[in-house]
C-alpha cells in the first residue's frame, strides 16, 4: 500500500536552533498513526512542517504531491485537516459559524459533526470563547472535519481536559476510525488509549525518528527511555 502521507529526512529550524534532524514518517490511507515522544522532541514541529506552517527541508508528499511547493492553505485543501495544539477556535464566532467558515464539500456537514459531538449540537448559537475547554476541543475537531480531510491530524487533543471529556474525545476518535476509514495522525501522551486506537506508532527522540512499530510490541525499556513511562 502506498503511503498517503510520506515524510522523509525532515529537518527544521527555529531561527538559529535546529528542532528536527531527520524525521521519517508514513501514514497510509485509513491508518491511525500515533506520533509520540517526550516534550520538546519535535512532534508539534513535525506537524507544523507537514501543514506548511513552518519551512522545512526534506521530502513531504501527500497523495503523491510534493507539499513543499505549496502554501499552507493549498496543502490543507489537498485534504489535510489539522486540529492544532491549544485548540484555537475562532473565539468571536458561534459554534455554527466556526463550522461554516471551515466547510468544504463532502460527507461531513454540520449534522454529522453534531452527531459525533452532541454537546456541540446543543450549543450551536453559543460564541466559541464561552465554551468550556473540552467543548472548544470538540469544536476544533469538528472544524477540521468540516474541511472533509483525508488525513486528520490531532495535536494534543486531550491535553488538560477532565477525564470524562477525554474519554468522550477518545470515543469519537475510535468512532472515526471504525466508521470513516479516515487516516489519522495523533499526537498524545496517553500510552494506554493510543495503544488501543492506533495501528502503528512513530516515536521521536531529539528531532529524529527513533522507533516505529505497533505499540503493543514496544519494549518497556524503550518506552521508558523515549516516553518516560
Amino acid at each position, binding site marked *: 500500500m502506498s503511503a498517503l502521507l510520506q515524510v522523509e529526512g525532515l529537518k527544521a529550524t527555529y531561527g538559529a536552533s535546529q528542532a528536527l534532524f531527520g524525521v521519517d514518517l508514513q501514514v497510509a490511507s485509513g491508518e491511525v498513526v500515533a506520533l509520540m515522544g517526550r516534550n520538546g522532541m519535535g512532534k508539534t514541529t513535525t506537524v507544523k512542517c507537514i501543514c506548511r506552517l513552518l519551512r522545512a527541508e526534506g521530502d513531504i508528499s501527500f497523495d503523491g504531491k510534493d507539499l513543499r511547493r505549496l502554501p*499552507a492553505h*493549498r496543502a490543507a485543501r489537498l485534504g489535510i*485537516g*489539522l486540529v492544532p495544539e491549544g485548540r*484555537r477556535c*475562532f473565539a*468571536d464566532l458561534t459554534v455554527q459559524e466556526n463550522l461554516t467558515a*471551515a466547510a468544504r464539500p463532502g460527507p461531513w456537514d454540520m449534522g454529522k459533526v453534531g452527531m459525533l459531538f452532541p454537546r456541540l449540537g446543543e450549543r450551536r448559537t453559543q460564541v466559541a470563547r464561552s465554551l468550556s475547554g473540552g467543548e472548544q476541543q470538540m469544536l476544533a475537531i469538528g472544524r477540521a472535519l468540516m*474541511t472533509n480531510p483525508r488525513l486528520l491530524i490531532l495535536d494534543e487533543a486531550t491535553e488538560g481536559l477532565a477525564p470524562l471529556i477525554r474519554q468522550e474525545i477518545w470515543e469519537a476518535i475510535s468512532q472515526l476510525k471504525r466508521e470513516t476509514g479516515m487516516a489519522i495522525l495523533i499526537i498524545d501522551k496517553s500510552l494506554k488509549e493510543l495503544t488501543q486506537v492506533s495501528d502503528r506508532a512513530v516515536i521521536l527522540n531529539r528531532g529524529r525518528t527513533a522507533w516505529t512499530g505497533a505499540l503493543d510490541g514496544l519494549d518497556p525499556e524503550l518506552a521508558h527511555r523515549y516516553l518516560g513511562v
Partner: protein
Amino acid sequence: MTRETLFNLAVLAGLVALPIYAHLADEPFTITLATRAVILSLAAVGLNIALGIGGLVSLGHAVFFGIGGYAMGILAFHAQNYMPLMEAPFLIEGTKSMPVIWLVAVIASALAALVIGLLSLRTSGVYFIMITLAFGQMFYYFAISWSAYGGEDGMSIYVRNGFPGLNTLIPIQFYGLCLAALVLALGFNGALARSRFGLALNAARQVPDRVRAVGLDPFRLRLVAFTISGAITGLAGALFADLNRFVSPTMFSWQLSGEFIVFIIIGGTARLFGPVVGACLFVVLEHYIGGWSDYWHIWFGLLLLVIVLFGRGGVIGLIAGKARAHG
C-alpha cells in the same frame, strides 16, 4: 429582536422621517444636510467591510472616495462642454447619467482597490496603515497637479446629473436615491458578514494560521474584502460630488480617510450601523457646534476621546450593550 436591531431600525426610521418632515416644512437645507450624512455613511459602510470584519485599518480610503468623485467630475465635465473624453481608437463621450457614472465610479475604485490591496495587504499592522496612507497622498498630489481637470482648484459641474424617472434637482428625490444606495449597501454588508466568506474573513482577523489550516487563504479573503470595500466607498464619492456639484483634490485627502475611521469608531466598530451613526453624529455636530464655534473639532475630539476611553463599543455599544468582542 435584539436591542441593537431595534436601535438600527430607529435610526433607519429617523433617516426616512426627518427629510420627509423637512420637505413638508419646506426646509431644503435640512435635506441637504441629511443627504451629506447619508453619503458619508455610505463611504464609511464601505470602509467598515474592510475595517470592521477584516480588521484592515486603511488610512487611504479617501482614494476610492476621490476616484468616485473624479469619475463623476470627468464624465460630467466632458458632457457639459460637449467634448468627447476620447476619440481614438474609439469614441467615448461624457455623460450626465447617474447610473452610468455610478458604474464607472464603482469599477474604477474597485480596480484601484484591487491594485492597492495587492501591494499593501502583503504587510499588516502599522505598515499597512502607512502604505495605504502613502497611496492616498500619491492620489492627492496627482489630483492637485492634474490641470486638465482643475488641478488644485477642482472643477464645478453646473447642473446635477440625472437619473431616469427622477428629478435629481429636487433635494428630497436626490436624497431618496442616496438613502436607497445606503440601505442596499447595509443589506449587502449584513449578508456578507453572515456568509461563509464573511465568517472566514472575520476568522482571518483573529487567527490567520488557523484559517490557512482549514484551507483558506487570508490574503485572498482580505483582497476581495478590500476591493468590495473600495467599490462601495467609490460609489459614495460619486454621490458626494453630485451633491456638491464640485470635485476637488480634498476628496483624496488623508484627513477625510481619517474621518471615515472616526465615524466607525464613534458609531461602533464592526457594528452594522456603526458608520451610519458616526457619520450622522459628525454631520450634526459639524453643523450645530460648527455654527457656534470655529473650533468645533476640539469638541468633536473630546467626544472621540470619551468614546474610545469609556465606551469601546461606540455609541451603539453604549445604547445597545456590548456586541461580541472585537479584538
